């Protein structure tokens, strides 16, 4: 039995190799130093439809500001500016 020669995979169309745009921390980029818990509309950018916080993986926040956002959201929830649980937040 002869060993099969290694075959290279060939595609009919060129494989897409476009680079995804790198995520960035919007606080660092915009120079925002303080995350205000009173601004519920702004904090909603970091929540999903059920009112859960989005992970850093998705928002791209740096750790420092993810922490601050988390604190602000929790404060806003306490003061009934944001819901703890909901459907169709946006």
């Amino acid at each position: 039995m002869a060993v099969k020669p290694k075959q290279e995979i060939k595609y009919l169309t060129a494989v897409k190799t476009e680079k995804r745009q790198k995520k960035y921390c919007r606080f660092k980029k915009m120079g925002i130093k303080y995350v205000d818990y009173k601004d519920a509309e702004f904090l909603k950018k970091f929540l999903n439809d059920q009112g859960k916080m989005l992970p850093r993986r998705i928002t791209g926040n740096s750790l420092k500001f993810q922490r601050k956002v988390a604190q602000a959201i929790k404060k806003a929830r306490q003061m009934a500016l944001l819901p703890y649980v909901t459907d169709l937040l946006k």
Partner: protein
Amino acid sequence: MNYELMVIFTPVLSEDDYKAAQKKFVDIIKDNGGQVTHENPWGLRSLAYPIRKKTTGMYLVLEYTAPTDLNEKLKIQLNRDENVLRHMVTALDKYAVAYNNRKNFGANAESKTTEA
């Protein structure tokens, strides 16, 4: 230290009662050696979830500078008051103070940031 107090009053308060309640807590801060830097009565707002079976509340935001022992006294008064649904005191860092100043007085208030 700089602090920020947010209070939610019951929505059944009349306009005068709301003013009176507002004055009451401003006076408590002043009497105990604090200084109110900004008052921001938001008025009636709907709550994100019901508190004590009420779906709206009267919000009040006070920014003040005060000695550290004031907050305990203030807390006693807030807990004692039946009109208060909920309250929260936040300690403000220097960025927060700058942010509030910019919001309250416009961009030209950078010099006012470091009082007290």
